């Protein structure tokens, strides 16, 4: 039992931190978030070309580095700490994961290779306007037409949906409900009938879009997984993305703690740093507890995710591990960010200080892929029903 990082994993973390401290400074984040695209091409290109992060857990046969989910999670934690504005999450944790789990050999060969080359960004669209995150979220429909398929419907809350070149969509057979009748397709963003609209968001560090399919026709080559029976695969993709989100949340929960401790040590009131007051120390101690506990949940879930992809005795724990991690990390990050505003005093309420960026990201990542209560209910179903 070695539940700690290997030397190589520590090296990946340290390298990521050094690079992100340089390219994802407060100034860089503010520049990127003010744009509709939401990231700067030159930084994304450096990530792909210099760092090769987009290839980290993609199998070597497609040009990837072939590392594990733990290594991916190490990177995501650092990206969450530095609020990196990039299409990394959408491309790797949604797009690449979907291809790895459900793609045909041809789709993997084409798209995973393009992701590794840095020439393709991707995302996953499955949630309709009802804002659900389980199987009922899938509302768009598919009708087979000879060798082709006719797709209709709309998706919301799609990360980087307005900029990604490849969109993986989940649709259902007309009249089907729940986990039945779900299929996955790869969809070129420029296919006729696809319209994409940027949805301006309170958290400006991650962009969302609405995607509408109006009589879109795709060939059989675009079908992923088993027609009408793709829910288990989609479910797995969602669990993996949920763990990835929790990893970002963990990094954010740690960074906002560090910023707060630093600030309270500098801020002098009544003749001493406010960090010396017990009321402040105790809140900070609770913040540290949440950050550390979040890490334990995420690292465990990462090990489970690794086995869910490549096989191993823990593979069957994927759903539970994802919900354990996401429910704890959602609450933990939000509470840390809200305490951080309080401990920063008046400046915590300003646009100038970065606290609000974390506070907003904490809420958006809490709501994305199901909030804490949603995931606790998933756990309750396993335990009680």
């Amino acid at each position, binding site marked *: *039992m*070695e*539940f*700690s*990082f*290997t030397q190589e*994993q520590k090296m990946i973390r340290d390298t990521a931190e050094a690079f992100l401290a340089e390219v994802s400074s407060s100034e860089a984040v503010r520049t990127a978030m003010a744009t509709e695209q939401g990231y700067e091409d030159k930084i994304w290109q450096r990530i792909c070309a210099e760092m090769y992060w987009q290839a980290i857990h993609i199998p070597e046969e497609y040009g990837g580095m072939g590392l594990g989910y*733990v290594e991916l999670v190490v990177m995501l934690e650092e990206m969450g700490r530095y609020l990196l504005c990039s299409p990394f999450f959408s491309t790797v944790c949604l797009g690449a994961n979907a291809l790895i789990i459900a793609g045909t050999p041809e789709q993997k060969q084409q798209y995973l290779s393009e992701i590794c080359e840095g020439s393709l960004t991707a995302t996953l669209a499955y949630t309709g306007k009802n804002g659900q995150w389980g199987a009922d979220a899938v509302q768009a429909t598919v009708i087979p037409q000879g060798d082709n398929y006719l797709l209709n419907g709309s998706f919301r809350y799609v990360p980087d949906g307005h900029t990604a070149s490849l969109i993986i969509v989940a649709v259902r057979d007309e009249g089907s409900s729940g986990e039945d009748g779900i299929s996955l397709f790869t969809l070129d963003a420029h296919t006729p009938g696809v319209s994409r609209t940027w949805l301006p968001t309170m958290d400006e560090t991650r962009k969302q879009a609405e995607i509408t399919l109006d009589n879109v026709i795709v060939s059989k080559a675009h079908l992923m997984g088993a027609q009408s029976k793709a829910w288990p695969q989609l479910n797995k993709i969602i669990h993996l993305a949920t763990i990835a989100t929790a990893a970002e949340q963990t990094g954010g929960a740690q960074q906002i*703690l560090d910023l707060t*401790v630093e600030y*309270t*040590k500098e801020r002098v009131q009544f003749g*001493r*740093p406010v*960090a*010396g007051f*017990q009321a*402040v*120390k*105790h809140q*900070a*101690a*609770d913040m*540290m*507890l949440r950050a*550390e*506990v979040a*890490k*334990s*949940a995420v*690292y*465990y879930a*990462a*090990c489970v995710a690794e086995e869910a992809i490549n096989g*191993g*005795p*823990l593979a069957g724990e994927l759903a*539970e591990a994802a*919900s*354990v991690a996401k*429910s*704890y990390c959602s609450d933990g990050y939000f509470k840390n960010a809200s305490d951080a505003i309080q401990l920063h005093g008046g400046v915590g309420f300003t646009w100038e200080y970065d606290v609000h960026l974390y506070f907003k990201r904490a809420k958006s990542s809490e709501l994305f892929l199901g909030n804490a*209560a949603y995931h*606790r*209910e998933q*756990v*309750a179903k396993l*335990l*009680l*029903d």
Partner: protein
Amino acid sequence: MKISFSPEDEKFRAEVAQWLTQNLVGEFEQLKFRGGPGDEHMFPEARKKWEQKLAQGGWSCVGWPKEYGGRGCSIEQQVIFNEEYARAGAPGHVGHIGEGLAGPTIIAFGNAAQKQKYLPGIVAGTELWCQGYSEPGAGSDLANVKTKAHFDEAKGKWIISGQKVWTSLAHESDFIFVIARTNPGSIAHKGLGFFLMKMDQPGIEVRGIKQLTGTSEFNEVFFDEAECDADDIVGEPGEGWAIAMGLLGFERGVSTLGQQMQFQNELNQVIDIAKTNGSHQDPVIRQRIADAHVRLKIMRYNSMRMLSDAGDGGLKKEALIYKLYWSTWHRDLGELAMDVLGPEAEILASAPYNLTRLQSMYLFVRSDTIYGGTNEIQRNIIAERGLGMPKEPKVQLK
């Protein structure tokens, strides 16, 4: 990063489970799930016999080095032993203070004679120990110890006077380890000694403290010119603080995973009741049960990180948060248990004040966030050692 156990470890797990299944029977059947915190006063004699049974099977002090009578188990095996022990519902160790605290301290700091005199009785489960640290004026502020020790040249013994409090199982124990002030006029952590003392002697009186559970597993212990042999001070007079602090380090460790298995047993009981009385359909209860499950799962992962990092030396952050985390979790579980029970929660097992296991747990968990360093002290420790925040300004005492 790798979290599964090796095939050898799994073989060891099967061996432990099998021994427990074969031996936790007959007269020991009644001890299942008994004797944990809040239940320490129950079945002392039968539990002592069980302890001796464990020793005969080679299952006492499994983490101690073989040269001192232990089993020399690796950390993984100790984890497995503690997990299987709790899973089987084997009773709380009546000798846990000797095995977990007194013994490791004597192994680390004691001389050859002390090792020879005291360790075999702990391993055999025949000699029980209690811990004489806290005093009425020195709870979390252990440096405020007032109990005095002076060396009587004529008798050739240390003479101890003073009072200890919150002493678990003092009424069942054969020995006590005591921190007392050897240097008159010394303050704080200077000038303390660490003594190994026999309980059965004229100068020691034990008075049970009736707890809010209606039972007594804590005691006051009064020392009126009690005697300690010259050879039974550990380390040098005046150096007791370092030994006491070393001992506190032993309190954390592999047994935490066994503790979690007991927590799991308690949570399972709550879940069974919820399913039986239908409260599992209440959306708020569902959320709270799921939350308890989530946080207990992560408690296990915290411990695994703590144990995996143990080799690096020094206290890791996940070790700092541990006490605050588990004690708060357990307190919440007590409240959840009562809410799941509903009005049935109020009904006693029998008069005059005999509690059910869950009632006893609910009341006892209020002490979890107090003993062993209150949550408030834990938060200070986390902020100061974990985050480098300034200490409280010292008040000058006159």
